[in-house]
């Protein structure tokens, strides 16, 4: 027994005090690592000329997995934004679903090759439509929550956005509405401190997104987005509040931005090396791994098992997506209007 493992036996592990099992936290790590590996694969495919465009969220995965974990995967709704790769994986999308979208294949379950990569949607797993103009999904989330409330279905809606999107009028109008009707909705803001190139101090007056919730009469919580368990804890509380009929919660996760905005951007043009380095030290993939090792839930062996499994899954998904057919040319005019029952 190592000294670290011995120490872990004395203090109860943090995840256990939150009601999470060892299997839970290993699964959570798997999703964080899967999202990261898939993200990296997408960039490689784009750079190799296999895909036109990639938009993703390295650094955001930890808070996404933590926040999605308390949600009921069958019953609840998720309205993502274009960095929600890890959240969508936890909710039920697969690596091949996402790669089919990246390659715009006929069997892309989001849109059949109609929508851009990263604009996740998957009605069968209750993930609905993201839009390129940022912030527009906030009113959608509120409408879904309103529908769930008047139908008394008990469904809870989570809607995600970056801090850049919070400057949009949609976000104000949505949170105002949700506050008035005490809707079962969780507003997630993943704050990576940059709206493409514009830093936080030039886009968020007051510098604190979570504080804005007070104006709408519901709680706003700011959490370290690299602390996966803390993100889980605050999301669980928000979920419980929504379930009890107490209304919305705004969750701000302060996350490191480890990559550029999209494959059309180079963040080195507007960020210093020092700042990017500092962000790397907050990488949730590393911080969570360190935690799992410190409580002896993961070791070299289990880590390698997970990593190998992910590599295999992504290789298979890439091959499958690559071999899948493009949309039929004669389907080009379809899906504009209702086509009959």
């Amino acid at each position: 027994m190592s000294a670290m493992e011995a120490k872990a036996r004395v203090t109860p592990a943090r995840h256990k005090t939150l009601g999470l099992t060892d299997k839970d936290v290993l699964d959570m790590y798997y999703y964080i690592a899967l999202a990261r590996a898939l993200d990296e694969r997408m960039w490689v495919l784009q750079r190799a000329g296999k895909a036109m465009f990639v938009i993703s969220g390295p650094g955001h995965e930890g808070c996404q997995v933590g926040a999605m974990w308390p949600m009921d995967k069958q019953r609840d709704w998720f309205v993502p934004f274009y960095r929600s790769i890890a959240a969508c994986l936890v909710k039920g999308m697969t690596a091949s679903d996402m790669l089919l979208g990246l390659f715009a294949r006929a069997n892309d379950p989001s849109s059949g090759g109609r929508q851009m990569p990263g604009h996740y949607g998957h009605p069968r797993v209750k993930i609905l439509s993201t839009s390129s103009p940022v912030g527009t999904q906030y009113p959608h989330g509120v409408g879904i929550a309103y529908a769930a409330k008047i139908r008394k279905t008990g469904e809870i809606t989570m809607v995600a956005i970056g801090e850049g999107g919070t400057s949009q009028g949609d976000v104000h109008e949505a949170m105002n509405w949700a506050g008035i009707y005490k809707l079962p909705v969780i507003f997630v803001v993943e704050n990576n401190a940059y709206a493409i190139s514009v830093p936080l101090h030039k886009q968020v007056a007051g510098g604190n997104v979570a504080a804005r919730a007070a104006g709408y009469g519901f709680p706003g919580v700011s959490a370290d987005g690299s602390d996966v368990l803390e993100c889980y804890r605050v999301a669980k509380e928000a979920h419980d509040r929504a379930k009890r009929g107490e209304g919305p919660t705004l969750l701000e996760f302060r996350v490191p931005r480890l990559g550029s905005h999209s494959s059309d951007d180079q963040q080195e043009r507007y960020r210093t090396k020092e700042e990017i380095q500092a962000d790397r030290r907050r990488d949730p993939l590393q911080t969570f791994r360190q935690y799992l090792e410190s409580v002896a839930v993961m070791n070299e062996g289990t880590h390698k098992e997970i990593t190998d499994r992910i590599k295999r899954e992504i290789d298979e998904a890439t091959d499958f997506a690559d071999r899948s057919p493009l949309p039929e040319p004669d389907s080009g005019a379809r899906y504009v209007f209702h086509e009959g029952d």
Partner: protein
Amino acid sequence: MAEVTYRDALRSTLIEEMERDHAVVLMGEDIGVYQGTFRVTADLLQRFGPKRVIDTPISELGFIGAAVGMAMLGLRPVVEVMTWNFSLLAFDQIINNAAKIRYFSGGQVDLPVVIRGPNGAGVQLSAQHSQSLEATYAHFPGLLVAAPATPAEAKGLLRTAIRGNDPVVFLENAALYGMKGEVADGEFALPFGKAEVARPGTDVTVVAYSRMVHLALAAAGQLAGDGINAEVINLRTLRPLDTQTIIASVTKTHRAVVVQEQWKPFGAAAEIAARIYEEAFDELDAPVERVTGADVPMPYARNLELLAVPHEGDIVKAVKKTLYRT
């Protein structure tokens, strides 16, 4: 068959559809306690309660966005905009979201949203309450655009709009709310994309929609006195557009005048004229004439306002031009 106003035809349809289907909810500014700026939702809050008749904050973008979310979850929201001019605040939600969600889902997601309210000029409401936005909305694939001219059409088209599965831009007209007309009893509905020959004729085709239909009919009456027998086509919907009925008429009359209240450049009349040229060029004995509003933001002064909208006389003049008569 009963005689009712355009306003009551809309209101009774809302009641019937809300009684029939609990998924139908109404939302908009001042539609509940205040009963609607044009009284279309009179006493509906009392009948159906605040969960289904929702007085919204002043936030077109927010509540039309919320309606999009509700529709994705199977509700059938009918959203009132106080006037269509205010829909511009929600343009992104209508164009980038409502019109594209089915498409972006590869056909998996229905979007049964109806957005309704008055479109076009009123009386001294100036430039931000008087615009005619039909061509703007009819431009975008994914949206249906209806423009009823009579109480019967208000009822029949609204029912079809509410029962459909696509977003509908439902353009009423403030000047028509008090108009009375015969409306069939029961679950009367009118299909989209089917124009009406409002007055049969042989010498010239006059194409119109919404309030302009009544101007066209009045002009046709006047022209009859001069021995000119005009056929008036009431489009009812702009998207889908019933090109077939227009072409069949032009094939008979060989002349066409298209009437719209909106500005001339890039308007509905330009599109309709182009369809006639594309499909019936050889049938024409004269160029297609357009009767339109003046190319200025709507003025407030009544005398200038009257100069900025089309009148019966303008249609008479245009018809005579196609017949080379003065």
